């Protein structure tokens, strides 16, 4: 089974770089004079541009981390990737449904903004955890 829609291995490091660049900018957004929210009354003002640039940096970083090949991307890794992607989508929608059930109109956009990156984050964390578990089992077998 060939993984046709994955980025090359080196893209993972580019993704980590983009994500790390985005973090301090988002943490300092108030000091930089932005509220980090999407467009208000108009688009293409400085606030909107800041939101677009930071969001694009974060999302492209997470996509590259999530969907770059492993050093050896074989069929077992591909299967693990597919299973984990399915599990993370289920998990995301369970969390989303629960969040929406306990959300009023004011919090709705916050839930949706978190949901922009939550499925990718769930997938990355679960996939890394499963790879770590696989490697631990090998070490146990070798011991």
């Amino acid at each position, binding site marked *: *089974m060939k993984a046709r829609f994955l980025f090359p291995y080196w893209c993972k490091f580019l993704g980590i770089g983009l994500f790390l660049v985005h973090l301090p900018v988002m943490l300092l957004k108030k000091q930089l004079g932005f509220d980090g929210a999407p467009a208000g009354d108009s688009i293409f003002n400085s606030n909107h541009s800041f939101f677009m640039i930071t969001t694009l940096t974060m999302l492209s970083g997470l996509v590259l981390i999530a969907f770059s090949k492993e050093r*050896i991307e074989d*069929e*077992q890794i591909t299967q693990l990737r597919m299973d984990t992607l399915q599990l993370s989508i289920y998990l995301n929608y369970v969390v989303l449904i629960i969040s929406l059930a306990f959300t009023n109109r004011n919090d709705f956009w916050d839930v949706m903004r978190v949901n922009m990156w939550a499925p990718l984050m769930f997938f990355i964390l679960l996939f890394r955890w499963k790879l770590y578990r696989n490697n631990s089992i090998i070490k146990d*077998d070798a011991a």
Partner: protein
Amino acid sequence: MKNSIRIERAIKNITQADLAELIGVSRQTINTIESNRYVPSTVLALKIARVFGKPVEEIFNLEDTD
């Protein structure tokens, strides 16, 4: 599905890493196949059988539950 890769490796005196390199997969994959946690594709099963110079059915066997 059961397999006798561990035994075949011992006969041929090669490690999981050697076998992984010969067929172009990771060592983790060989480990998960040996411990029956992953069922390989037909292509991979044929590659493994070719390394040991035996038919696939001698290395991989169906179980009653399959």
